[in-house]
């Protein structure tokens, strides 16, 4: 039961990745692509935590932790650059 729920979550995350990549390809402006970067970062953090749960190796949680601490930096840099230059 829990295994099937985790597999369903992996399928949903794959759909979310496909939608984010679609917005990255299609998005007319730079802001759309920055939002797609933010979305895909969040989805990737959830995916790493899910892989740690599926493979029962909880050292992978540390990767998600480091990623969550550092990933806002690039989105922040893009936003600051679009505002007035870094």
């Amino acid at each position, binding site marked *: 039961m829990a295994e099937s729920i985790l597999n369903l979550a992996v399928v949903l995350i794959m759909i979310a990745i496909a939608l984010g990549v679609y917005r990255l390809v299609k998005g007319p402006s730079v802001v759309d692509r920055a939002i797609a*970067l933010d979305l895909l*970062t969040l989805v*990737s953090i959830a995916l790493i935590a899910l892989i740690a749960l599926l493979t029962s190796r909880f050292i992978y949680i540390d990767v998600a932790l480091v990623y969550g601490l550092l990933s806002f930096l*690039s989105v922040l840099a893009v936003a600051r650059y*679009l505002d007035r230059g870094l």
Partner: protein
Amino acid sequence: MTMMTLLTLVLCIGILVSALLATYLKSVVAAVVSAGLVGLFASVTYVILSAPDVAMTEAAIGAGITTVVFLFALSKTRGAYDE
């Protein structure tokens, strides 16, 4: 384990699409964003390939610092490239 194979396939398609976008996009900032996404997808792929230390380094350097350094250099040379 077939779910992990499918997930790896989706992530590799994401890497390929992001790399092609980073090559073909006209806007420089959008190309930098796409190049950051290559590092992001590669980091998740390293986790699936059971190399968490490589994934942690890739997440810190490839996706975090590289985008900031590129945008900083672009901001220093503002006006040299049309955006």
